[in-house]
């Protein structure tokens, strides 16, 4: 049973990650899985359209719009709603130090952009969605960073992990709470997806072109490494005082 679950998860996972190999830092890749399923449907429908050339010319207003050749679609209404959600979550991140990763932080975020605290109800998973939003945002920022940097593969991996870990510094005190939230059953699949995306992105920019078992091994190793440094960095943080943490030089902190 468990094996089946893992297998289906992995299938979903790698199907998803393969999409990411060629697109460098597209924000849409990190949308939730149902968005991905929708996209599959759209792909199917476009295939159907291609097979019957007569229907191609007729374009209704209600039909989703396509941008580029990646069949990314946006519907005007959804985009507006997502926009507000993103604004609320971004504003909520500033209240994490006060309320932790919690619904209260989202409420405060909603109030900060002039909405009623009631808007927190837009996030049925509450704090989990806030953490996922933060992780996704960090991954996108990392991807943007990697696009601009051009280094040798060994350096790039170390550099990427370091840059990524540094993004957690503002929230290091609350980070164990976030890690706990990511282990909850309804958050874990998305959390795993984000790790998969992260390591795939790093390997892509490190120039990995493997297509055999190496592909899996490399990603697995890097995911393990990243997870370990993530936890290690927090354990180390919890041992040192806050001031000495800030005084320590970059490499000292990351290499130990």
């Amino acid at each position, binding site marked *: 049973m468990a094996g089946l679950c893992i297998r289906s998860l992995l299938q979903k996972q790698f199907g998803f990650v393969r999409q990411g190999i060629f697109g460098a830092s597209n924000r849409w890749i990190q949308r939730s899985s149902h968005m991905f399923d929708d996209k599959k449907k759209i792909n199917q429908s476009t295939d159907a359209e291609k097979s019957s050339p007569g229907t191609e010319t007729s374009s209704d207003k209600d039909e989703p719009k396509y941008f580029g050749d990646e069949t990314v679609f946006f519907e005007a209404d959804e985009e507006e*709603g997502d926009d507000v959600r993103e604004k609320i979550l971004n504003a909520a991140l500033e209240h994490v130090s006060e309320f932790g990763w919690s619904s209260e932080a989202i409420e405060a975020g909603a109030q900060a952009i002039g*909405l009623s*605290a*009631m*808007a927190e*109800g*837009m996030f049925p998973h509450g704090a989990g969605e806030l953490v996922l939003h933060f992780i996704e945002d960090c991954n996108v920022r990392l991807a943007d960073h990697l696009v601009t940097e051009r280094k040798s593969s060994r350096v790039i991996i170390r550099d990427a992990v370091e840059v990524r870990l540094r993004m957690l510094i503002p929230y290091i005190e609350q980070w164990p709470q976030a890690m706990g939230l990511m282990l909850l059953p309804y958050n874990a699949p998305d959390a795993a997806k984000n790790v998969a995306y992260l390591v795939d992105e790093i390997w892509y920019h490190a120039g990995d072109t493997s297509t055999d078992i190496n592909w899996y091994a490399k990603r697995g190793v890097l995911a393990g490494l990243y997870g370990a440094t993530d936890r290690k960095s927090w354990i180390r943080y919890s041992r040192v005082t806050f001031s000495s943490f800030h005084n320590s030089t970059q490499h000292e902190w990351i290499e130990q």
Partner: protein
Amino acid sequence: MATLSVKSRADCLEALVRSSRCAVSLLSNIRYRMFSGSDVEEEKSSHFGFQAVSEKDKTQKVYRVFENVASSYDKMNDVMSFGIHRLWKDRLVRVLNPPAGTKLLDVAGGTGDIAFRFLNHVKRKKLPQSKVKSGSTDSHVTVCDINKAMLDVGQKRAQTFFHSSGISWIQGNAEELPLSSGSFDAYTIAFGIRNVTRMEKALSEAYRVLAPGGRFLCLEFSEVQNSLLACAYERYSFDMIPVMGHIIAGDWESYQYLVESIRQFPDQEEFAEMIENAGFSNVTYENLSFGIAAIHSGFKL
């Protein structure tokens, strides 16, 4: 004593006779189609159960129904739904999950079921320290009902449950709320919107009184998703509920109306679309008990 039992036995007999007359769901389906068809053609007409009536008549008729059933309303709800309506209402408040300082407007909530649950929920919730300091913690619920008799029952219950603060009672029509725009964080309507004559108007009023970011929540009977269960539910509601209404509340017609009005109400998707058309964003719904009831949610952004 003897006369009483004879009378109640006669009542039961009459009830049974009438139930057999109403039991043929096929017939009611035909009636349903006939009248829903004629509704579309005439603009000013509305429906009262399966009868086509003018809009003005509908409002009056609905008023009379709830005037009649007010005293036994809660008891009948318990009997008809086997107490499940309490779980549905609990669920509604849990979905609402009101943060401290919420201003709630509960429309068609005359007997205070949602209002009391809301107040209990807010009382139980732990308050974050910063909010305690700033003093924005007092939540408030305004109960608005068109029916004076229902409000009276609610006010009496408020006294027995010791809810004196944080609640106010207003008599008003959901289509023309006597309240200022943007003054509420949340709007709930539980088993009420079905009885409103012009639903679109009630929805746009809901949109008006909500503040930006405010939430609209509606608990209402809906379409049962499982076809086998739908069949059983159909039989139960047409054959049993009016009978129970007659025996317990002494009112057949009102409960016949209740059942018919449930069939007239749009299904989940259709109603979600209506909410979207009123201007709400992020409209979602959740089925309760296989879709016997549904909670629709929308946000004013």
